[in-house]
């Protein structure tokens, strides 16, 4: 199954980290990505720019509404994602638990809808 891992953390926490700490986080993600890549489990992923670069678009009654910032202001922001191929939720959980951001932020694991379900759910 494919799982999208949404990596959340407070941007203020990231800003407070020393360059060495930031480097360690990046290195941790890099190692995990390489490892998943070598076993064919890594399907994509990236760090995201801060929410200051975010734009939200809605179309209502044919009218396009474009606003600055994310859809909702929350304590933790979406800072990156991994798309991972895992055999089940247990494997997905153990991969997520190894992400450096799990230590101070949180990882939301969302299974992608598979075709069979997509057909059923219409």
């Amino acid at each position, binding site marked *: 199954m494919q799982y999208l891992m949404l990596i959340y953390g407070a941007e203020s926490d990231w800003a407070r980290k020393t360059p060495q700490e930031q480097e360690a986080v990046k290195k941790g993600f890099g190692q995990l990505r390489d490892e998943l890549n070598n076993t064919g489990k890594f399907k994509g992923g990236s760090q995201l720019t801060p929410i200051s670069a975010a734009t939200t678009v809605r179309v209502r009654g044919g009218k396009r509404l474009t606003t600055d910032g994310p859809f909702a202001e929350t304590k933790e922001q979406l800072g990156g994602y991994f798309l991972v191929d*895992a*055999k*089940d*939720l*247990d494997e997905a959980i153990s991969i997520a638990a190894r992400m450096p951001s799990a230590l101070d932020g949180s990882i939301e*694991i969302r*299974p992608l*809808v598979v075709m069979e379900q997509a057909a059923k759910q219409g």
Partner: protein
Amino acid sequence: MDFEKLYREESGRILSTLIRLFGDFDLAEEMLQEAYAAALQQWPAGGTPANPRAWLISTARNKAIDRLRRERRFEEKSEEIYKTSEFTVQPAAVLEDEMFPDDRLRLIFTCCHPALDNDAQVALTLRTVCGMTTEEISKAFLVPVPTMAQRLVRAKRKIRDAGIPYREPAQEDLQDRVEAVLLVLYLIFNEGYLASSGDSLVRRELCAEAIRLGRILCGLLPRQAEARALLGLMLLQDSRSEARVNAEGELVLLDEQNRSLWRADEIQEGTELVQSALRSGAAGIYAIQASIAAVHANASTARETDWRQIVGLYDVLLRANPSPVIEVNRAVAVAMAGPIQDGLAILDALEYRRELADFHLLPAARADLLRRLGRGAEAADAYRLALSLATNDVERRFLSRRLASLTS
């Protein structure tokens, strides 16, 4: 062949195997029903097979293959299901498993996956592993039936959509799941100890089931003091089973029980387990409740019971786990320690709070205290209220007798 008994005793175990093999709760439940229907049709004429369980599993498996072929889903599932042919030929061989000697315990751990809502974990396990009906489970949880049905549907959907695996947890995940598993065993035992409905007070097979699963769990997790405490608690409660119901199948309260009918072996084993758990530093909810049960079990008469110690233990328990049901039990102990009015005052306050408006044991406990205080008319009213709420036939007869003795 007593089909009802067969269903009660075997369905949980068979379903556990089918769920593991099909990887699909709903398919397993449906095929089990169909296999039972086939047995009802074929066994009376053709004779009961030597191994009814293996017959039912094999029949359910064949029906699943037919179904999947019809629905053209066979390719994706065939590999999983073919693995079962080996099982149906030699059931004993596959059930031998060093780490998890029983499919039901394996399934309990799957149902108790931390990615599921806590209440859903317990409900799903009771529904599938123990073959309890949705109605019985809602009673155990004190929630309406539709709420429970919805909870079960949601849990099954999450298992399917999120890819929660059907297999035993890895060693490092065990700890994570123990708490929910203990609660499951505890609720199974309670349902057996005081069946929520029907004409028998105790469903021994559920108690035996919970105790058996508790033993396996203790074997798996030797360092889990709370698992030992829970097993001890269940044994101490179970030791009184014979004395709680008389020859006519009627309920006998603790203070009127023939204590020579209490099972000394279970009391001894239970007491030792509690002591061992307490020595390992456990003072969790099971260790405290087991300590209360041990005080009862080791008293030679109701009068000689150390009720003050029991009240003290209930105080500790309430701090660890606030619950109005525990407050009812504490109030009864307070009344036993005396004076009765003190216990009654607590029950009156609980009734006023209305949290337990549907719980028959609250008015039943009040009625008993009022009766002992000689306040017959009020006691009769409370018995009537309890009767309107009680659903177990044995309890209802007991309440009716008490009511009749007051009004005659």
